[in-house]
């Protein structure tokens, strides 16, 4: 409103002012084609199901292993993954090895809630990919609870620990930082320095 009044009185000055603003952003990078539309913040929030290590995108909600054990039955996870994560046709969710507790994580099977470097990865996959045929229908509380249950089955967290958007990214996973990291990608560069093949 103030700008409009100002503009009515001194159009020349505003023209210069606006001109310099436009020029400034053009210098930064302005759209060349001007095609498409700007998604709303709400659209992006609903669409953005990618959860980073920091868990910034996690929605509000909470759940514990006890609740998760119930969801595991209610949502028929048990049908494919078996009772307590073993015995179904789908991938196992906890170690089958008898002496699992004494083994380092890399000596155990490739199990998502056991080997993942962050609990957020477990949450993300359950949220986007489960249950088969009804993907994307779980509520945040259910995803938190299932994540807690699977982490409890793998002895990563105690049964009564409550997971939410604050505590989930802080869960200490057994793998620590004992996993390979990607080097920075450079175009026209061999896959691995010193590897002739």
């Amino acid at each position, binding site marked *: 409103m103030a700008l409009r009044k100002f503009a009515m009185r001194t159009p020349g000055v505003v023209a210069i002012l606006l001109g310099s603003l436009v020029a400034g952003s053009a210098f*930064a*990078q*302005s*759209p*060349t*084609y001007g*095609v*498409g*539309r*700007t*998604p709303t913040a709400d*659209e*992006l929030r609903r*669409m*953005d*199901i*990618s*959860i*980073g*290590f*920091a868990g910034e995108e996690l929605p509000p909600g909470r759940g514990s292993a006890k609740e998760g054990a119930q969801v595991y039955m209610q949502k028929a996870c048990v049908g494919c993954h078996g009772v307590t994560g073993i015995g179904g046709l789908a991938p196992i969710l906890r170690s089958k090895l008898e002496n699992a507790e004494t083994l380092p994580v*890399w000596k155990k099977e*490739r199990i*998502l809630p056991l*080997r*993942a*470097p*962050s609990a957020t*990865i477990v949450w*993300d*996959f359950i949220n*986007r*990919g489960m249950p088969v*045929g009804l*993907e*994307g229908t779980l509520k945040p509380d259910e995803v938190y609870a299932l994540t807690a249950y699977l982490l409890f089955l793998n002895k990563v967290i105690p049964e009564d620990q409550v997971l939410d958007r604050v505590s989930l990214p802080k869960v200490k996973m057994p793998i620590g930082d*004992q*996993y*390979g*990291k*990607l*080097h*920075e*990608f*450079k*175009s*026209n*560069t*061999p*896959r*691995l320095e010193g*590897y*002739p*093949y």
Partner: protein
Amino acid sequence: MDSDQKNSRREMLKASAALAASGITTMGAAGTAQAQAHDHPATPGSENASPMIHGSKEQIEYGHRSKYVNSVRVQHPIGGRPSPDVFGKVFHVASPLQDSVGVITPSSLHYIATTRGSFLPDVDPKLHTLTIHGEVDRPLTLTMDELKRFPSVTRLHFIECAGNRHNGKQMNVQDTHGMTSCSEWTGVLLSTLLKECGLKSSAKWFVSEGAEEVKGASSIPINKGMDDCIIAYGQNGEALRPQQGFPVRIMVPGWEGIFHTKFLRRIKVTKDFYMNYNEFGHLTQSDKVLALGEQIGPKSVITYPSGTQRIPGPGLYEISGLAWSGGGTVKMVEVSTDGGKTWNRAQFKNTPQRMAHVRFAYPWKWDGTATTIMSRTTDDIGQKQALREEIADWWKVPFERDYRVPGLDNSVMPWKIAGDGMVTNGLA
């Protein structure tokens, strides 16, 4: 057709046109004219009788191949998870490289892989959108029509699945190498779209995400995205097939197949690496093995003669195959016909292009004695395809028959040729 024949045909057409104009039925006249004009009249009992394919609406509208050509895709690996499974889900399906000619894989024969075993989403392109957001100045949502308003590129690129590993148990080249395919892809460079959105200096990675039920997602370095990634809507001159991600997918040239997100719905530009389920699949203990797991190494394979084929007897043959590299352009292919003792430079059948299959060939006179043939390639950034023995040596581990190459397997593939011309797996 010489000019006399042309003239006589023109006369006939004129004549039947005149008859038609005069109101007399032309059926008899046209029938006679046709019988005279054809080289192979389909008259029953005639010495020259040959079956004809009757034109059908379907055949006219969208062509089919000959019924005598029956090359098909098969599940990969043989004996593994079937596609379709009992629910109709598709997992891994290999392309019949043993029958391939040239470098383009027909869209109908392109290999298929899905994130977890998925149904094929039946995406309505009018409803589908692509959204780019995250570390950009201006998030953008595009309809498919809007995407096509951006300047396009058309490039030849291969895609290869990380599961394309050869071993001694496989029978033919479809089993050993059929999880690679090459198409001409058309779309918009991702760099064009990212510039339109205004990339922030904090942008280091992006996550590409599909619209299928599992919402398959991959993390890719922003350098790669700005380098040569394509948001592709076209394949081999037409719209993408649903099995290849209709209506839009991302091409990440030279990188393993899982990065080429199909049914692309979202690109999230990020500051940090995101470990999606796909990246969890790549998790290893070793930085070195991980580095051998995104960009495909230099690789080649002989497709003729190859496993389960039989060469009829001594004589001249053109050994033919495919070579490619995820690091750049194939520079050279060599063929050995004596089990790797000597190597001969092969010729190219087309101009090698970046991250694309090239067809190579080597003329060979077989004298009828048992031998082993193999090929190896070198790319333009100096990477060379190695024998398994050489790779084991580099890793300083003892070489054994069932040696598993760390990372993606781009090792040399040998084919054994027996005295009777039968070709079998040289790793067996």
